C-alpha cells in the first residue's frame, strides 16, 4: 500500500466468512485520498490472502457501493461475502 502525502484513515469492518479470512473483524487502514472502493478491496486482498479467492461485497457508510466509488475520509467500510440471512 502506498501512503501518499494526503492520506486518510478508514475503519474497515469484516463480517461472516470475510472476517474469518481476514483474521479480524475490524481494522483501521490508512490509504491515499481518492482511493476507490475496488482499490481498497484489492489492497485488503494483498494484505489478507484468505480474502483473495472470494467475491466480496463492499458497503460504505452502510450503503452498497460499486467498485469505482471513491472513498471519503472518515467513512466506515464493510466487507463481506454474499449475505445469507433468512
Amino acid at each position: 500500500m502506498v501512503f501518499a502525502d494526503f492520506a486518510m484513515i478508514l475503519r474497515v469492518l469484516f463480517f461472516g466468512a470475510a472476517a474469518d479470512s481476514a483474521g479480524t473483524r475490524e481494522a483501521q487502514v490508512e490509504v491515499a485520498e481518492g482511493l476507490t472502493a475496488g482499490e481498497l478491496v484489492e489492497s485488503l486482498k494483498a494484505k489478507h490472502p484468505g480474502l483473495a479467492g472470494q467475491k466480496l461485497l463492499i458497503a460504505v457508510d452502510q450503503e452498497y457501493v460499486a467498485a469505482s466509488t471513491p472513498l471519503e475520509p472518515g467513512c466506515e467500510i464493510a466487507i463481506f461475502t454474499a449475505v445469507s440471512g433468512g
Partner: protein
Amino acid sequence: MSDLYELTTDVIDIASVARRVVPPECGATVTLDGYARRFTKDKATGEVRETEYLVYEAYEPMALKEMAKIIERAKAEFEVSAIGIAHRLGRLEIGETSVVISVAAPHRKAAFTACEWLIRELKRTVPIFKKEVYADGEAWSEGEMP
C-alpha cells in the same frame, strides 16, 4: 398502523409479529416462518449434513436500513397495508425461528406475492450471515449476490 423491522437475540414469537400488522381494512396476513433445519443437502455434492445449531450475525445498522428499504419498496410495488420483519441473531437451536415476515393486505393475493418477494430480497440484500455448525466442523452459508 406502522410497519416493524427488528433484529433480536430473543426467541421470535411468530404470532406476535403476524398480529402486530393487522390493519382494520385487511382480511388476510401471510407469514413466512423460516427456521433452523436439521438436515441440509449440499448443493454441489448432494451430500446431506446434520446441523447441530446455527449462528447468525449481522452488520446491524446496515441490516436495519436494508430491511426498511425492502419494506418501502414492497409497499410501493404491491397493494399491501403493513409489513413486519423480525430476524434472529446469535445461536439458534434446531427448529427455532430465524426469520419471520408478515404481510397484511386487503386482498390475500398481494400478501402472498409481497411476502415471497420480501424473503427473496432479504436473502439477497440484507447483511446477515449464517454459520452452520456440524458435529465435525462449521461453515458460513453461501448466499446469493445482490
